[in-house]
């Protein structure tokens, strides 16, 4: 009996020490999730949008979206290593957000089931709870609610990963999510669409830059390092953008509302657009094609 008690206490003490160490480590990390412990040295919080927020910026009502671009749930069985499971977890989360735009809702539960399976595989139990599944069942015909649920899902997962000191895994999931969002955006829009919409796609450069800076902090992780290397081609295209630049002018109106005018405007050319499209399609294929 005494030996049994001693073993239990030892286990609890070890768990406690591991947890303390985990908290201490997280103090030196940065994160994009909803709550973050900030280090004294770095003190930067990257505020990154969820996939549905990227879509909201690009997909306006007169764009006809095509369902064929999403990653089939049948591919999920091919993802057998942690890197591809985490990357494609991000891909499927974005696909789920994308599906919530469509009236055809039959696929959404299949995607949610796949997301649940992948979260379990990367040891993220409880992200897709029975409560979420029930809410989705109850809201299948309400697009706004599904959008909200998809955003909650993304941020909840980010929060769990950050609080459990798994920012390297968060980088992989976010990578899959952002690449899929760019892939779906760029495939649904041709250069013939209005300059405003094409510019909105190219403006995702600012999101990508923030994301890339966030990911670089974890580049000592072997998976993150390899993903950053895969993304360097996209980074280079974004870095080579040309701009029309005007001085920033800040004024205040009578209600103390601040007006910020001027700044950098991306020069949109078909050549740049096609180069970016090609690179995004390449990288996305690398992520999803494991067959």
């Amino acid at each position: 009996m005494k030996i049994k008690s001693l073993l239990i206490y030892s286990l609890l003490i070890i768990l406690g020490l591991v947890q303390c160490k985990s908290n201490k480590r997280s103090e030196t990390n940065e994160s994009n999730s909803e709550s973050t412990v900030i280090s004294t040295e770095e003190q930067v919080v990257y505020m990154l949008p969820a996939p549905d927020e990227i879509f909201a910026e690009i997909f306006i009502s007169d764009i006809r979206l095509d369902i064929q671009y999403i990653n089939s749930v049948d591919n999920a069985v091919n993802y057998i290593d942690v890197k591809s499971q985490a990357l494609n977890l991000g891909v499927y989360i974005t696909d789920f957000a994308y599906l919530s735009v469509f009236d055809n809702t039959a696929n959404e539960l299949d995607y949610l089931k796949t997301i649940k399976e992948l979260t379990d595989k990367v040891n993220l139990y409880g992200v897709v709870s029975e409560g979420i599944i029930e809410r989705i069942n109850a809201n299948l015909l309400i697009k706004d609610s599904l959008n909200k649920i998809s955003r909650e899902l993304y941020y909840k997962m980010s929060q769990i990963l950050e609080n459990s000191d798994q920012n390297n895994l968060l980088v992989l999931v976010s990578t899959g999510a952002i690449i899929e969002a760019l892939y779906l955006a760029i495939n649904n829009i041709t250069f013939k669409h209005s300059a405003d919409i094409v510019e909105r796609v190219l403006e995702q450069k600012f999101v990508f830059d923030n994301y890339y800076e966030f990911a670089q902090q974890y580049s000592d992780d072997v998976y993150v390092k390899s993903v950053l290397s895969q993304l360097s081609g996209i980074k280079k295209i974004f870095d080579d953008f040309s701009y029309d630049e005007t001085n920033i002018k800040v004024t205040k109106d009578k209600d103390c509302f601040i007006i910020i005018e001027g700044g950098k405007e991306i020069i949109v050319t078909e050549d740049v657009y096609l180069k970016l499209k090609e690179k995004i399609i390449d990288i996305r294929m690398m992520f999803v094609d494991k067959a």
Partner: protein
Amino acid sequence: MNCNKKISILLIALLIGSVSYAQRCNNFHRRGDCKIYRVDGFEPYGQARSALIEVKKPTTFKAVFYGQRDYKIVLCTQYGYYPIHYVISNADTKEILYDNQEDDYVESVGFTIDKTQNLIIEITLMAEKAKVKDAFDLRVCAGVNIYWRKVPRMGF
């Protein structure tokens, strides 16, 4: 209750406590001081965040702000750690766009933005009246809540 049970409960409480230390700021920006009560067509922006930060040390939040949008930023912290000093600047040029010192450390600001850009919001909890007893009191929750709306197109 025997001694073994007491020790078990104590150890489990310690474990739970250490987990909640990292999580105590979750969703802080969605509570009390960070909310706006006059909506005026503004919607919550998903990039709003909370963080556990150190008192009197600047912390940088970085986010994309899309052009042709109105934004409201509301900052909040725990009771006793106000005022909050914040400076909003362009991430590329580092040009300062707003410093709330000029408005007596007001906690919210509204602005309209012409072109998409990355902005940096540098926050310092001045905690003028805070009574710091130990290191635990030096780290408190801060929230950056952001609301946005599309700028209506002008003309006919």
